[in-house]
């Protein structure tokens, strides 16, 4: 590529939006965190391990991870109708799957760990911001974990591969259009816990797209690490 692709907000193709990470934002919870990619802001609260209701959901071999993801009504331009939707239920489920491989669920049989993720401002990449926040909140809640989970969206605008798309970029329609690929991986490894693809891409480009998340996840991991260590002065 001779000329470097310029994005609308002036970022380089592999540049993330400004990351803000904070831990302990909800004093009432056992663990909590905030994670923001530019204008996308997610907060997560973790409660538990605690008693599980309804009782029939209890698993005597392990703890249940129960994730609830939702957009707040004022997080988007047109008011989002409160309450669970088909979309939020799907994202809750994939977030649960993205997080459960790192959490040591075997230590607390018959109990539940509740993870609440709320998006207070949405500008694309909400599920990835939510996973990053939830992974920090789980660590903050003192739950035994293998590692942190880092998540980022990569994508393609016309013929250019980019990371961390904004809503405006997601709606890009010129040329080959826009592709959105949400990725979550266990920090510092090549183990993936979430791969969600939306759009079109040439099969030979998929590996290039995934490898874009290498550096992005490193950057996210450093932000998460810094935020967690900051609360121990």
């Amino acid at each position, binding site marked *: 590529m001779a000329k470097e692709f310029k994005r609308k907000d002036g970022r380089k193709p592999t540049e993330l939006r400004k990351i803000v990470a904070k831990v302990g934002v909800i004093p009432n919870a056992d663990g909590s965190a905030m994670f923001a990619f530019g204008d996308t802001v997610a907060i997560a609260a973790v409660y538990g391990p605690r008693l599980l209701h309804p009782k029939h959901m209890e698993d005597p071999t392990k703890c249940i991870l129960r994730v609830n993801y939702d957009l707040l009504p004022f997080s988007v331009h047109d008011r989002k109708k409160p309450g669970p939707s088909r979309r939020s239920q799907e994202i809750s489920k994939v977030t649960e799957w993205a997080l459960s491989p790192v959490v040591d669920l075997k230590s607390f049989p018959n109990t539940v760990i509740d993870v609440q993720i709320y998006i207070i401002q949405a500008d694309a990449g909400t599920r990835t911001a939510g996973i990053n926040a939830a992974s920090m909140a789980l660590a903050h809640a003192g739950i035994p974990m*293998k590692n942190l989970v880092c998540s980022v969206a990569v994508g393609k605008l016309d013929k250019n591969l980019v990371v961390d798309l904004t809503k405006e970029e997601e709606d890009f329609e010129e040329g080959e259009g826009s592709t959105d690929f949400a990725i979550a991986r266990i920090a510092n490894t090549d183990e993936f816990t979430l791969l969600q693809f939306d759009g079109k891409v040439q099969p030979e480009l998929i590996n290039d797209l995934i490898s874009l998340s290498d550096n992005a996840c490193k950057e996210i991991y450093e932000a998460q690490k810094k935020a967690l260590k900051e609360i*121990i002065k």
Partner: protein
Amino acid sequence: MKKVKENKINEEITEQEISSEEYEHAKRKPVIPGEIIVSGEDYLPGDGTRREGNDIVANRFGLAEESGRVIKVIALTGAFIPRRGNVVLGRVTDITFHGWIIDIGSASQAFLPIEESPKFVSKAEMDQFIAIGDIVAAKIWGVKSKGIDLTLKGKGLGKLEGGFVFHTNPNRVPRIIGKEGSMINLIKENTSSNITVGQNGWIWIKADSVDNQIKARKAIEFVVEKVHIEGLTEKMEEWFRNYK
């Protein structure tokens, strides 16, 4: 059989006292899950850590501490995880045929069998000994997947009458107690109150006056806030001098 059980509980208490002392040790650093604490075959993984090849890796978020060859992670945040030998405070939620069900604020319910009361209690008059809503100080003698078993046999255990109970972060309890109970004794002396601290973060205070009760609670809340500061006992003494 009973004897053996009691001996085990006594062992656990001494272990607990040591761990509050260890809180004062130096050489600690914050770690996050998955972070390598030290490398080398010489080290042994303790609480909150695991071995991965040549490295000792943190399993949870907290402060990593080296005590000899053993590396462990001290928890700073999170819910109370019950352990055998912990003294906890709880509120009676129900009375069954065999004993009392007690809420100790943890993931599973706690059960206090009628045989574990220090004196004989008739099954017909259980609510006259401990009624629903009462606060008790009890010791955990067993943690199973379905629940926690409690006992009232031991010094300072039993129903707590009068005073009031409040909750704090259970991870701060070692600091509230201090080295060999130095901090809690300082607060007790300065407020002439009676305080029982449960490992679950529930604290019971009873003093001769309401003012002293409030003073004791404020003092404990001061300790909880200033958890990472060195020489906290001196700071506490100063706090009492300035308290109006």
